[in-house]
């Protein structure tokens, strides 16, 4: 069993690193006790959910089993957790309503997209990646991040962004979703059993930035201190 996993990890080192690097921000959240902030608590739930899903997907992938249903189902879950962080960060009512509406919208749209992208949903072996939902999630997440950046510039409440944990979290997410946004719709056609298209290095770009994203999360969480964060 261990051989199967190690063989997969050695064949796909970049995407495997992206899976295991998640342990770093999780550990830091626990050691730095970043739970006291609601947004970072949601980030912790996201990281734990991501690690569980990624490990399950790695297990299926190592055993040459179609794991795309997990990827598809993770889209509304991840968006709800990440969008929820912004719900606690925004102070305006309009922004909060926008976050909540977008979470419901993405959930509904993702479920529709799963049905739309898969004619026979019961056939998990031939299950395909969603066509639009990941892109929509990316666009909305980038919009939330830009809106948040606008808010922090406008409010001028954070003296030094480089020591502000949520800025690092936003930067990580912005880079990850920017790397994925053009690739996401193409993956619907690429991740099939009879795929003839080789995307080469382009395919691993999201994994590289997923790793970078986890590193930036870690930097942010490392900068967290309950006392100074409250100020």
């Amino acid at each position, binding site marked *: 069993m261990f051989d199967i996993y190690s063989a997969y990890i050695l064949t796909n080192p970049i995407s495997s690193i992206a899976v295991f690097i998640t342990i770093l921000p999780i550990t830091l959240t626990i050691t730095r006790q970043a739970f006291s902030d609601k947004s970072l608590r949601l980030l912790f739930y996201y990281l734990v959910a991501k690690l569980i899903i990624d490990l399950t997907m790695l297990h299926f992938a190592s055993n040459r089993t179609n794991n795309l249903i997990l990827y598809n189902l993770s889209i509304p879950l991840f968006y709800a957790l990440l969008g929820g962080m912004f719900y606690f960060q925004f102070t305006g009512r309009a922004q909060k309503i926008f976050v909540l509406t977008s979470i419901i919208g993405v959930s509904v749209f993702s479920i529709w997209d799963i049905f739309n992208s898969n004619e026979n949903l019961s056939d998990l072996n031939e299950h395909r990646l969603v066509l639009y939902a990941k892109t929509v999630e990316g666009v909305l997440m980038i919009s939330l991040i830009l809106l948040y*950046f606008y808010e922090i*510039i406008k409010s*001028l409440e954070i003296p030094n*962004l480089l020591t502000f944990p949520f800025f690092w979290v936003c930067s990580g997410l*912005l880079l990850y979703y920017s*790397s994925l*946004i*053009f690739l996401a719709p*193409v993956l619907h056609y690429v991740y099939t059993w009879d795929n003839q298209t080789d995307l080469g290095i382009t395919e691993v*770009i999201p994994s590289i930035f997923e790793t970078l994203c986890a590193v930036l999360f870690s930097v942010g969480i490392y900068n967290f201190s309950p006392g100074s964060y409250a100020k």
Partner: protein
Amino acid sequence: MQNSEELKWALLIASMAMLAMAFCMIAFVTYYQKKRFEEEKRINDIEKNYNRLLLDTALNSEETERRRIAQDLHDDIGTMLSLTKLSLNQLSKLVANSGDEKEESIMKKSQSLVEETILHVRRITRDLVPTTLERFGLMEAIEEFIHKLEEDNNLVIAFQSNTEEFPRQGQKLELTLYRIMQELVNNAIKHASCTKIDIVLEIDEEMIGLRVTDNGVGFDPEKIKESNLAGLGLLGIESRLAIVNGTVQYEQPAKGGSSAIARIPVNPASGNKPEPLHPFRRERVNI
């Protein structure tokens, strides 16, 4: 195959462009935020300095005005009263010669009233301009102030210092401490219904501390701050302290009453002896 290659390159370029934009956005936000914060800080500093200058000017004007009034009282009213006293003395001799007891009694009463008025004018003049402070320093000025207060009120005022000879400080600093002490003691007499006031003056290498404690009804400093009840007196104390980078802290001692502690960084007097703050000289005060 051709299409696959084209797609691969298109995706790579698009992703790279998007990532470049994301990097630029993060860099821009960081840079712009820093710039705006620096700008905001600069404006705040200018505003703070301007306010301090305004406050300083206002207090200088107040001291100048006090001196002018004291001068007018001494030079004009004081002189007139002295002349009146002299005239009354001469008149008194004439009245004594006439032998009319009623006239003599009225004359004595008039003399006594004029003498009393002269004393009042002297007291007001000294209150307006603390000449002892300028000549002998803070400890002597406080002792004189206490002495006068104890004469007029049924109060016990204790004064102690951690040094025998309090080193002379800058003119502005001494005057600030003196005025704050005056304000705190007056507040205690007016509002606290106290019977005892303790004044402690302490100095170390860096700070001068002035503590005024009374055994009166006391007040909750937090409530006063929250409800914006701070009267002109307390605001005046804070304004004076702001000019000399001082702070004030109000406490409620466990045994009752209230306590105020003002702390000001030490600013020893320069080598030149300051011009005495004398009410009889017509000049502008430079504190």
